[in-house]
């Protein structure tokens, strides 16, 4: 008996040392230290380009001959975007969920709300309008009359969607025009029929003139969505990252630069690509351990319980959404301003960015990041935060 125990102990020691040796011989992937020029070059080579700093440059990237972005159309789109009349109960506009202040330079909403009477903004908006996040910060979206999203989906940011190819969580939508048409009609969003939209627009004499100026065929449902599209395409943001790419080495901290190197080398940029850092493709999630995520959770209380977590996602899938065709296919979300748009994932199940980065690395890259790597990536993501660029379009001709 004793001998048996001894042999068992010896075998255990041998096995342990083998495991330790293997882990010692296979060190984790080392990300080289790049100097600033090299890092900039790497990022640009991979298409992680800056957001243009002038309207002309923006037009070159996003303008579309089928719906040219004229200043008048953009101005009309802006009116429509903030118009609560375009919803059934006349309480919801596009900006109710894709929140930011109409006057993007306005920095006094909270002070006005606190000190003046009869302000219109709701209590959440009073503080959060200044974030310019383009989302409602809710776990799941709620449309006109408080209608919940049938799949309890989280609102995605509208900012920088000008650079995206695919829209909505499933990515089945291919233009902003199409998506705004859906949003106007969906019963859990604005809840109007195309005819009702046309009627509501017609009621406003201001619109009648402006539609006449902008479109040859005047007011129509399609022209409404076209004007909204033209406006939404101007909603792009620039952050410290863009300034770094344009030559300002001090715009990003050392930690954030390490994070960018990690982002490129670990393969995050494979999907979160192009200027918008996402929105360019439809991918599976979770990729690893697809399609079932098993996790054994041990609880060492007095009576130990072995809990088997078994779900389609590495978090609770409230709402039961399974992506495009129920095949776990999702549009890759845009990472610009991601640090402003918690909670994360399609149903807002993950509250904080660090956990979201960890989930992505585990299930998309099959990688267990160290705490330091996660912090570095988060520091990098923070440099993608920025305010909406004021191109001064009114003066533009």
């Amino acid at each position, binding site marked *: *008996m*004793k001998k048996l125990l001894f042999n068992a102990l010896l075998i255990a020691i041998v096995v342990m040392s083998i495991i330790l040796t293997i882990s010692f011989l296979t060190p984790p992937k080392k990300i080289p230290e790049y100097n600033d020029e090299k890092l900039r070059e790497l990022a640009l080579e991979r298409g992680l380009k800056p957001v243009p700093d002038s309207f002309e440059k923006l037009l070159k990237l996003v303008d579309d001959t089928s719906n040219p972005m004229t200043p008048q159309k953009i101005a009309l789109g802006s009116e429509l975007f903030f118009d609560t009349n375009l919803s059934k109960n006349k309480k919801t506009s596009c900006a109710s969920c894709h929140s930011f202040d109409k006057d993007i330079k306005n920095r006094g909403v909270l002070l006005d709300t*606190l*000190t003046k009477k009869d302000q219109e903004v709701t209590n*959440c908006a009073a*503080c959060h309008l200044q974030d310019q996040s383009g989302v409602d910060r*809710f776990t799941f979206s709620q449309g006109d009359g408080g209608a919940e999203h049938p799949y309890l989906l989280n609102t995605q940011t509208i900012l920088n969607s000008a650079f995206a190819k695919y829209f909505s969580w499933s990515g089945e939508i291919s233009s902003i025009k199409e998506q705004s048409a859906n949003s106007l009609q969906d019963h859990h969003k604005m809840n109007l029929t195309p005819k009702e939209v046309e009627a509501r627009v017609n009621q406003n004499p201001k619109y009648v003139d402006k539609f006449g100026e902008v479109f040859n065929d005047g007011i129509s449902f399609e022209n409404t969505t076209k004007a909204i599209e033209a406006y939404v395409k101007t909603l792009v943001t620039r952050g410290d990252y863009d300034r770094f790419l344009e030559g300002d080495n001090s715009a990003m901290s050392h930690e954030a630069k390490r994070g960018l190197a990690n982002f490129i080398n670990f393969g995050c940029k494979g999907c979160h690509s192009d200027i918008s850092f996402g929105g360019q493709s439809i991918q599976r999630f979770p990729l690893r351990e697809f399609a079932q995520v098993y996790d054994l959770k041990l609880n060492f209380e007095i009576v130990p319980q072995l809990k088997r977590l078994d779900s389609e996602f590495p978090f609770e899938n409230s709402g039961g959404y399974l992506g495009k065709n129920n095949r776990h296919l999702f549009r890759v979300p845009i990472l610009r301003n991601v640090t402003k748009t918690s909670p994360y994932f399609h149903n807002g199940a993950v509250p904080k960015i660090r956990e979201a980065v960890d989930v992505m690395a585990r299930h998309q890259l099959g990688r267990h990041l160290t705490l330091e790597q996660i912090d570095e990536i988060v*520091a990098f993501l923070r440099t993608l935060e920025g305010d909406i660029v004021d191109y001064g379009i009114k003066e533009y001709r």
Partner: protein
Amino acid sequence: MKTIYIKILVFVMFFTGVLQLKLLDIAWENFKIIQALHIVISIVMMLFLIAPFIYKHIQNYFFVKNVRSIDGWLLLCTISLLTLSGFYLFFIGNRGGDIFGTLSFNLHLYGSFILIFFFIYHTNKQQKPNISLQIILASLISFAPLYAQTPKLSLTEIEGKKDAHHSEDWTNSIKCKSCHNDIFEQWSDSNHKHMAGSNPYYMVMETLAGEVEGQEFRKWCMGCHNPSGIATGLGKTTHAMEGNFLSNEMFEKNAKTLKSDFKAQGNFRVEEGVSCITCHQITKAQSKGNASFSLSLDRKKYAFEDSTSDMGRWFNEKLINSNPDVHKKSYSNPLYKESKYCASCHDEFHPKTDIKIVSTFAEWEKSPYNNPKDKSKHKTCIDCHMTNLQNNKFSPLKAVSTDGGVIKDDVKVHYFSGSNHFLSGLKNKTHEDQTIQLLKTSAKLDVDLKEGKLVVGVTNIGAGHHLPTGAADFRELWLDITVKDKNGNVVLSSGKLKDDGNIEIGSRLFQKVFGDEDGKPVGLLFWKYKKLLSDTRIPAGEKRVESYEINKNVQYPLEATIKLNFRIYPQWATDAVKTVYPNLPSPPTIELSKVVKEFK
């Protein structure tokens, strides 16, 4: 052959024990591993190897061979005592609360030397000394101190990281709860815990400061209100949500949200605000204000201290409890009893203009309470703000700070009673009660009628700083006066609340009023303060007198009712916060003192 294994094992246990001696002071990296190994190996070996061996050994020699060996029995006796004391230390610990812990610790420590003595004697007596084994042992003994003196490994990367710490470095307060339950419960409803995301007034002010002065300006607020957030790179303080609704943290008892967040995300999620670690890892404090403290998250952690599993944490607690010296040292500091420790946050100045906004520490420094020469008169911050109150008197709490620990004569309670009875009172009535008791010790009223004038004196008898102090521009301390004549008609009235909840104009308030550059009151934007419009606060030990003209034609006798009232926030400030937090109640008025006097 078999006995040699036992010999090696016994010596392994002995040496791993000896290495933990305070005397040797081995590098912490090595200590924590050795400590964990010592316990695990000892338990496994005792159960599976040594106990069966002893059983067989006794059977073989005592019963079969009939050997009578006194040292053998003594050896058995010591080994049993060592085992028992070892089990006690591991499962219950040397927490200081019972004599058995200390007894076990000493028994285990000195007993091991006695055991080794008997062991060598016992084995050498029976057979020729095994020279090779002795050489091995001798070399081990001579090398052990050398090994112990290896240069200390650089412990953590925190020092190397420039401006950010990992969330794991900010050990979540929930982890402290399992051994310091009472202190945790006191802290969990205190204003120190609820100073960031769960404080509606703070959230509004931080956001407003960001909106008016630029988002970077929030960091000025966060230095004291959210140090962990700032150190982990957060640009602003966040509040909890429950689905699509704002969380009810304002009314929650015992840090419910913190607990559920910890359960779901562990220490991976940073605990925002002032946590246990924040105060208990401060190494230096400059009494300058604006978060002028140095914080080192670089501390000696026992094995598995950062473990994410329940099992790891359970094991870690056992390791700490069995030998808690290092734990105690790394979380306390004589500095924590000095007033200058608190000064690092309880003084406040504008980061750009250096204009002083809050000077509580500076006020205390000049007060009679700062008297280091006469210890009986010297009173530091914690003598009032961390001492238990009962029946409106300071009544030091006789209790433990660690579950099962030493009963202390004056446990420093972590209610952090100050003046904000309101926000802590929304969660816990004990907190409210402690704060109101403290407030009532602060002032005394006296009333007289002189030359047709009602003269009211308010003396600051209890506070070691001005009354009120802190954000004194948002504190309301005022006199509520009613004088009735012979027929019960009111002939003088002052300091009443208007219908909208604000104090009527013309009332006598003890406060400071901040004005901006142009001399206009700053309102909510207190950081705009440039000119002091008025300062009617009462310094420590001093008296302020207010007199009220009384009409000459009144009919005596007069009945004067004088109240000294206190309200934590003015109604207009609460109304502003309510526009964003609609379910915030209005703070009540607290009557600190009342005098009714008749004049004939």
